């Protein structure tokens, strides 16, 4: 049975004019999400993960310009929609959880008000129905005394609780797709795991598609079905989580994986890897491979012409590198 496609992104680019020239933080991004699937986007800070998700939601900052070849949610071509029609979709069929739970809730309104706002806006239910669902979802995300919580204000809740509220909020309208942009980065390490488990659990239960943006490869290994590795605005490798973790084929992906200890595989006391060098500036056009500067395999071939995302490794694994994996063996 073919999986049901929830989101299809093709040729997604973002350009931001800056005083020093045009910035290209997202370039020609292509990936998809199926129903009930978790797709992880990983990559170091500043590689364009947040802007990619904001571009999908059409919530980019004012000056940023978006272009895409395809941007389809279920069977709705989002490229054809105006802002008003997009707002009908946002929070309804597609919702987002942000990185900063401390500041993502409005300090002036109660949790209950902010939770029920979505369904009321999208005409899904009246006030009392929405409240019932809010209570039910708050309990689902592990918040006790949910009915009382509805009357509380954000400042009365801890960061972990607020992020749980944000998750409940994202689920209020029963979306097909949730984008979680580093939902745990701002939280205590002990709470991070809980929140991620919760997210994965709910995603399975409600069979939503989930785009999980994170730095944490350990988490990715546990919850992701597929992984897209981003570097300097581009997806450099994409495939099933299994393939990415067992046969990483881009030097950058390998570098990333070397940076995390793997239980049972990494010997105690041995050195963890690190990737030397810094991320290139994304201002102006850059021909060839973006990683070339930091790659120990790089040759003239890498920077002379654009490198495409090749699928020579099979249907569920694509990589943006001029070398084949065999050529890259140390």
């Amino acid at each position, binding site marked *: 049975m073919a999986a049901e496609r929830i989101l299809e992104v093709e040729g997604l680019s973002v350009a931001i004019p800056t005083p020093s020239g045009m910035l290209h933080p997202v370039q020609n991004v292509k990936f998809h999400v199926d129903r009930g699937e978790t797709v992880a986007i990983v990559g170091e800070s500043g590689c364009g993960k947040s802007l990619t998700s904001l571009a999908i939601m059409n919530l980019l900052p004012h000056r940023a310009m978006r272009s895409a070849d395809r941007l389809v949610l279920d069977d709705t071509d989002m490229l054809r929609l105006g802002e008003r029609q997009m*707002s009908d979709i*946002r929070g309804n069929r597609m919702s987002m959880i*942000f990185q900063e739970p401390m500041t993502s809730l409005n300090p*002036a309104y109660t949790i209950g008000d902010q939770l029920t706002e979505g369904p009321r806006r*999208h005409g899904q239910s009246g006030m009392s129905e929405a409240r019932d669902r809010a209570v039910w979802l708050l309990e689902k995300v592990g918040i006790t005394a949910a009915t009382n919580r509805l009357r509380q204000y954000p400042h009365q809740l801890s960061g972990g609780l607020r992020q749980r509220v944000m998750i409940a*909020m994202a689920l209020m309208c029963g979306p097909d797709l949730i984008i979680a942009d580093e939902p745990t980065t701002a939280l205590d390490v002990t709470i991070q795991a809980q929140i991620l488990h919760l997210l994965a659990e709910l995603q399975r239960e409600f069979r939503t598609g989930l785009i999980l943006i994170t730095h944490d490869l350990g988490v990715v290994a546990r919850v992701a079905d597929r992984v897209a590795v981003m570097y300097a605005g581009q997806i450099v490798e994409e495939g099933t989580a299994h393939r990415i973790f067992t046969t990483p084929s881009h030097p950058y992906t390998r570098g990333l994986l070397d940076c995390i200890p793997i239980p049972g595989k990494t010997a105690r006391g041995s050195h963890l890897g690190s990737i030397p060098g810094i991320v290139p500036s994304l201002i102006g056009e850059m021909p060839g491979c973006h990683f070339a500067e930091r790659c120990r395999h790089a040759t003239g071939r890498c920077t002379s012409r654009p490198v495409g995302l090749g699928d020579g490794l099979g249907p569920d694994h694509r990589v943006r590198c001029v070398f084949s994996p065999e050529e890259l063996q140390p």
Partner: protein
Amino acid sequence: MFTYLLRRLGVAVLVALTVSLITFSMIYLSGDPAVALAGEAATEEDIESIRTYYGYDRPILVQYGDWLFKALQGDFGQSHYLKQPVALVIFERLPTTMMLGLCALVFALVLSIPLGVLAAIRPNSLIDRTALTIAVIGQAMPSFWFALTLMLWFGIVWRLLPITGSDSWANFVMPSIALGYYITPAAMRLTRAGMLEVLSADYIRTARAKGLRSVTVLFKHALRNAILPVISLAAVQFGFMLGGSIVIETIFAINGLGFLAWESIQRADLPMMQAIVLVLSVFYILLTLLADMLNAWLDPRIRVA
């Protein structure tokens, strides 16, 4: 919330007491009040009898206590010039000034808040620049000059509004504009700055991510948070406006407290001036108290501790 209110109230009472002390000492600022009252031609005995008659011979603290006790009961003594109870005259004139102040405040807020919001939505746009120009001009222009300009065009050249008097609502239009215009620039800039800050807040992004309509995002989620400092400003400025009403009421010959203050200064009517200063100050203290309470009610971080 309750302790906050109590603390705030305590501060207000303390400030009011301090103000009353300062107001009371006003009579000694201009020298011996008995000498001043008695006039140029008075003999030593005249002065002495006036001093005992008005009780200026008692210890200062006793005089203050006596004065404060009476003032609390609404007795500010007799006007030296009008030979009427001061309280009576003041409460006759007070409503006119309050009316003027309120109209001016409403005019100022109705103009400045929407302009500030518009300027913040499109920073550096034509609207923003126009608003900025208005603000700069407003801050640079003396209010008496602005009042006279209004008078010239609306009253004399176009003959749209009456120039002086306080009999009908039409009399209040120009004074309200002249008085309210004074606080418009500050309120507008503050609204703009507040909105700009709030609009880039994370919770605004959350609101948009929920698919809320832009009107809801703007007015429910943004303005409510951006307006807090504007309320405090409005309260403070309203107090200044009461002071400014001395100029405006005199120019437009409006029979309010400001005009009365001006008249009393000219007549050296000390009890009257004392009472006016005290009433305006207490009113001002009440206003800031009210503004703080309004802020507490709007901002749950203060209200629900």
